[in-house]
């Protein structure tokens, strides 16, 4: 995380808006500096944090680019691992022992018959260490004495410049009191990260995608708190995973008395370092998807199984059912499927509350019976629930799906054109429904 002194020199502002002077990632001069700093860090593997700091200051010298250089170095050292050096005797023990003699001096006098060197020598002998070991271990637990054991990811200069620009942007969000986001397309991870960073949001559906207002629980009761800035900053790379988005942040940087607006949208060249989530969260889900694919997938059925593509907006939270089944011949026929596997009781309680709040007739819940769940837990829900002793049996699930689709959307209309195209598939699915 970049500190304010590394961020503020890169800010530009008017009376209402704030912009950041990001580095030009194509500029070869910056590439050279980034490359030299990466090499500098790699040369320091095995050396102390203090030594890295000194090497860095020597490299920077009287350069006018010192703010950028320190910023790049901060990104590098934040991603690296510094480990406390191993000592035979704990530094605390050594200090307690040595300091009970102090103050000592290099030269002897009437009141101080033992010199510094003799005291250290004696203490070392008592502790079974050499004099040099004692001196090295005395403050070995200070952060500046930690050893660079891992230089972090294999940075290229381009990576480092991109990450620095991202960190500058996140840095501005430390000072944010509220974010307004419009987003469309591939937002599954967005919801996941919103929850992860415990941000409070209010989402409304737009013609395309969603509009979100983000702040924290106490925000409505205080004037523009920046308490949630760190969470906004932590969350920000998740936004970059979306296809199209627009961000407007109300920020209160130390350079301005007024609140300023900082804007960013998907035309930005910023890159996220967050990984897009894998397709499945649990074994239960991947097994279900695999079994569906084997028995009903491809041309074998008329349903298409899609993973976590529907978002049920529930005001200050969302529910993203594990799967959506879409009728290949009529895409308005959709059945949502949520697997309720083994989870913590609190998680289940919230899940039941969400299902109730969703008032959703085309949601099918598949519940693992071994769960310590009272049978009437779901009784007020409008959704359908099937209990399974071990794991969902796909055949039974699909029977329920067909019945549910008929109840919610009416009987399927056969389409002759598709029938002739996919005779085998239709035949099979008919047999099963």
């Amino acid at each position, binding site marked *: 995380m970049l500190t304010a002194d590394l961020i503020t*020199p890169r800010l530009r502002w008017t009376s209402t808006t704030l912009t950041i002077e990001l580095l030009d990632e194509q500029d070869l001069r910056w590439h050279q500096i980034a490359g030299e700093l990466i090499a500098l860090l790699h040369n320091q593997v095995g050396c102390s944090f203090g030594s890295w700091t000194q090497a860095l200051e020597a490299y920077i010298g*009287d*350069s*006018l*680019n*010192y*703010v950028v250089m320190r910023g790049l170095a901060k990104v590098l050292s934040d991603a690296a691992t510094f480990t406390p050096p191993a000592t035979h005797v704990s530094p*605390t023990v050594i*200090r*307690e022992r*040595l*300091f*009970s*003699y*102090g*103050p*000592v*001096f290099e030269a002897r*006098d009437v*009141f*101080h018959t033992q010199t*510094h060197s003799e*005291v*250290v020598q004696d203490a070392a002998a008592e502790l079974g260490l050499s004099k040099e070991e004692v*001196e090295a271990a*005395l*403050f070995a637990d*200070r*952060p500046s004495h930690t050893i660079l054991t891992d230089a972090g990811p294999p940075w290229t200069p381009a990576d480092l410049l991109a990450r620095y620009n991202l960190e500058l942007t996140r840095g501005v969000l430390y000072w944010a009191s509220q974010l307004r986001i419009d987003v469309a397309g591939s937002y599954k991870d967005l919801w996941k990260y919103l929850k992860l960073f*415990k941000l*409070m949001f*209010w989402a409304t559906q737009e013609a395309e995608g969603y509009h979100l207002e983000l702040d*924290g*629980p*106490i925000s*409505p*009761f*205080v*004037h523009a*708190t920046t*308490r949630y800035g760190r969470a906004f900053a932590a969350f920000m790379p998740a936004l970059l995973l979306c296809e199209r988005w627009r961000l407007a942040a109300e920020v209160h940087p130390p350079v301005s008395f007024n609140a300023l607006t900082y804007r960013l949208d998907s035309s930005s060249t910023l890159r996220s370092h967050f990984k897009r989530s894998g397709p499945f969260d649990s074994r239960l889900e991947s097994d279900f998807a695999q079994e569906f694919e084997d028995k009903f997938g491809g041309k074998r059925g008329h349903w298409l199984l899609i993973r976590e593509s529907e978002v049920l907006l529930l*005001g*200050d939270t969302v529910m993203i059912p594990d799967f959506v089944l879409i009728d290949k011949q009529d895409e308005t026929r959709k059945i949502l499927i949520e697997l309720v596997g083994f989870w913590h009781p609190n998680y289940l309680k919230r899940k039941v509350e969400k299902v109730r709040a969703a008032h959703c007739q085309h949601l099918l819940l598949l519940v693992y019976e071994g769960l310590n769940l009272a049978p009437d837990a779901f009784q007020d829900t409008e959704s359908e629930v099937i209990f399974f002793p071990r794991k969902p049996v796909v055949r039974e699930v699909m029977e329920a799906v067909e019945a549910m689709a008929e109840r919610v959307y009416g009987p399927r209309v056969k389409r002759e054109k598709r029938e002739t195209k996919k005779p085998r598939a239709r035949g099979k699915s008919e047999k099963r429904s």
Partner: protein
Amino acid sequence: MSKTLFFQGGTLVLDDTGQHEAVPAPFQWVKGRWRCEGYHYGSLLPWIRQQHMRDLVPRWKPLALSLHDKREPHAYQLAALDAWDAASRRGSIVLPTGAGKTFVAIHAISRVGRSALVVAPIIDLLHQWYARLVNAFQTDIGVYYGGEKNILPLTVTTYHSAGDLIAEHGQEFKLIIFDEVHHLPAPSWGEAALMAPAPARLGLTATYPGEHEQTNGRWRVDELVGPIVYSQRIEDLLGEQLAYYRTQRVRANLTESERASYAADHALYMGYVRSHNLQRSHGAGWLRELMRLSTFDREARSALLARQRILRLLAGCQGKFQVLDELLREHSDEQILIFTENNAVAYQIAARHLIPVISHETKSAERKHILEAFQARQYRAIVTSRVLNEGVDVPEAKVAIVLGGTAGAREYIQRLGRVLRKVENREAVLYEVIARGTIDEGKAQRRRRGQEEMPNAHR
């Protein structure tokens, strides 16, 4: 369906309650639910009980505490505690400095007997609370601040970190104690008090904020903590708290090479500041302007680097170490505190003379050990940068040595007033070690002026 009340990030949220249902005043309809700030919890309790709702807020635990501090409370301390009890354990106790506010708080924790959180203004005071609570209850005490985060049923935090702690764990504490409660009106500090649902609340201070100070900030202390339940006049107990000491200035000479590099850097630095009229054009913000210029103006960058070299040189010039050496020998049977300008010099002195160092890196347990061993005279001296500060109980020291020091006048006086105590009729001494013929002299002058503005602080 029965209503549910739960705690969310410093707020109380009502579940299963529609927008058109009648709810008490503090609740507001925000983002689809009735919500209010955590601190209303105590006053909402009668209504919560009457509604037979599921109250998921309290997560505090009963504490089996035994009080190992066997000192009997003074009559005024008991009176203060009784008054607080009578006010439903909500309100502030105003006692002069040195009248044992911490002791009162320890008894309050013992009386409530449930998980408690103490909020202190600065880390030094957090460490001090930690030490006092460990000694009083002989149990593990949690600390929560930038350097250490360990939450236990009895935990100490700072106003700065309290917001994060309370947002996550606020419902785990039934009692919250605000040390130096007059700091509460400050915006970000008051937020922590606003978010805490603890029904039992105790404010401690020697100087309760005046009406204008409370309305200047965003929050009234009475509203967040409760009214003043007990107040003892400051004059009654003051007087003996003032220090009796003399100040002696010692000038150290720069070596020849130090003098040469000082002169060159000073000329470079002051030359730029003067020729660009920075002080006249930017007033108090001139240094920030110099920093801004230094990212594109090579001369400004050189001037800024020269300034940094000067400060580093003066903080650790050889002459000062020599003077320190002599003073340590001279006062070889007295308790001595040494203040340095930066951490590097403090650690240098610690290694050179084998004396314990306290810095912001020092953890609570070691700091407690150092201060206690100093009090027990196992340690003769402590060296510190600037972490022993306002309001911290440093055990009796006869001698303080300040090596340079750019700290502000207020900080200086706080150090003088608290650190040195007249012991057995022997005068305490504060040595101010400055580099002769350098900007140190000007700084010391400024400090003295600040000191004279508060005549009572120095006798």
